[in-house]
């Protein structure tokens, strides 16, 4: 079973917040993270890792199905760099 938003909401609920408040809090937290990345600002979480926004420049690509040349526009991507501590835990 995968970890979903629902399970995180349940754990917040266990702190004593109402169900609705727990949902709101988790949504707020997700919004804060997305908002920061949207502004191009990295999100650093000590002990977990960092979420970075990287700029990709325009490049020439190819449609793998048809073989037609195409230009891929410059874009931004979000990358994740795992912290040493988390990496160690995963490999334990």
């Amino acid at each position, binding site marked *: 079973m995968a*970890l*979903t938003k629902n399970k*995180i909401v349940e754990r917040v609920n266990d702190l004593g917040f109402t169900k609705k408040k727990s949902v709101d809090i988790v949504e707020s937290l*997700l919004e804060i993270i*997305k908002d920061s*990345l949207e502004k191009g600002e990295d999100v650093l979480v000590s002990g977990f890792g960092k979420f970075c926004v990287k700029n990709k420049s325009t490049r020439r690509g190819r449609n793998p199905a048809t073989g037609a040349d195409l230009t891929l526009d410059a874009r931004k*991507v*979000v990358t994740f760099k795992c912290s040493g501590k*988390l990496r160690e835990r995963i490999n334990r």
Partner: protein
Amino acid sequence: MNKLEMISALKKEADISKFEAAQIVQIFFDSMADSLSEGERIEIRGLCSFFVKKYKSYTGRNPKTGEKVRINPKKLPFFKCGKELRERVNN
């Protein structure tokens, strides 16, 4: 943005105490770290998903010296950006 700034922002946004905000940020990342350390997948709609990728042992090379090195089996979390986030960073 770091964890402290995230806690302050959550305190303000959700109208809760700083202590509560700190607890929630901790629960959020601890839950994810716990799942990954058990090899469990994570799916946070709109933000991202993670899965643990297993790598077998292989012989690599030190790119500086060209020396052969044995790389032990390892596991690494693999990050996939969610649709909403991907669209928003490119607005």
